[in-house]
């Protein structure tokens, strides 16, 4: 319940404030969103397996976003930003898919 409320509050805040994202931050946003989604699905799966831990969730969320941004930053500096972005998206996407599959097994038993 509490995370849902927090999520809703965050969405409302984003919609109301409509902050301007500085241009230098723009390339990291999509990858940060995907990394955050990965952390979320990991957390949901852990909750369903009965081993959820708020600290682990927060740390994995923050470190996922930071590492993803770091990889993209490094890629941009090396001139292979788009390739590295693709790599990060593929890995995180795979993780998201298998986490979702695990969640589905827990919820639907299929």
């Amino acid at each position, binding site marked *: *319940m*509490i*995370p*849902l*409320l*927090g*999520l*809703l*509050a*965050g*969405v*409302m*805040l*984003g*919609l109301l404030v*409509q*902050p*301007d*994202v500085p241009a230098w931050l*723009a390339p990291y*946003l*999509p990858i*940060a*969103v995907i990394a*955050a*989604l990965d*952390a*979320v699905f*990991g957390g949901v*799966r*852990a*909750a369903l*397996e*009965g*081993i*959820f*831990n*708020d*600290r*682990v*969730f*927060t*740390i*994995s*969320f*923050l470190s996922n*976003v930071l590492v993803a941004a770091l990889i993209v930053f490094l890629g941009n500096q090396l001139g292979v930003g788009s390739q590295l972005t693709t790599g990060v998206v593929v*890995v995180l996407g*795979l*993780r998201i898919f*298998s*986490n979702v599959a*695990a969640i589905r097994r827990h919820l639907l038993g299929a």
Partner: protein
Amino acid sequence: MSRPLDRVLRWRPPRGRPDPDPAASMALLREVLNRPLDPGYRSAAEQRSAHGLPASTGSRSVLLLVSSLVLGLLVTVGAQSLRGPDTAEAQARSDLADRVGEQRELLTERSARVEELQAEVAVMQEQALDGQSALAEELDRHRRLAGGTPMTGPGLAVVLDDPPRPADVGVPGEDRVLARDLQVLVNGLWAHGAEAIAINEHRLTSTSSIRFAGEAIVVDFQGLTRPYTVTAIGPVDELAAELDSGSTGAYLTELQEEYDIIVETMRDDEVTVPAATRLSVREASVADDAAKEERR
């Protein structure tokens, strides 16, 4: 705080189990597919169980509230800022397209009005000059020289067109008709006795310009689309000779050979060149008394 992180950092895959897959290169993929859950959860749960606490911390914590708030904010901002510019650009583009369409309509409207007014002026001039054939003749001669009347006569037409290219080639480069090419052609025709020249039914006068604006060739501030047809009235033999073996001809041959530009020349016994639409009085002076007397 430090303990779970410590455990995360020191986590190793469980030993003792031999790798069942001989294809070691698949290890990474398997790792990604089979162990997607952050191992920290498992170790943290084991630690809590060891201390006699329930394995899950539950969802009632300020930390979780804050991180889910940040998460919601991040996703919303990401979605908005990544979606925003595109729609704004599309909006601007359609606005621009609308404005171009409006201005084009206005242009055709006004051009029609110009023709109407020119016809009116011609009628009035005729009335004013009624019975003064010498003056009428002079006016006629001047107007013909200035390009104010449509003309018909023997002449030729030159068609210039860009080389055919596959549709997937994006920005056209040098191998296309440039304003310079049309300038050279038109100047060559003028120099060899052409009396009236039009490009794509657009009459050239002594004040006409042929320019390049971005990707388009602009004649008298009006953009033209390819193919470009240059029609000229004048001494056909001389003009054809110039286009065949003169310096203009050499230039056109080079265009054909170097840039694959399509050049076609056709002779015609009867070529029609329309009147110029952008004629206006730039200089005028009050006629002196002698001229007034003469007119009476």
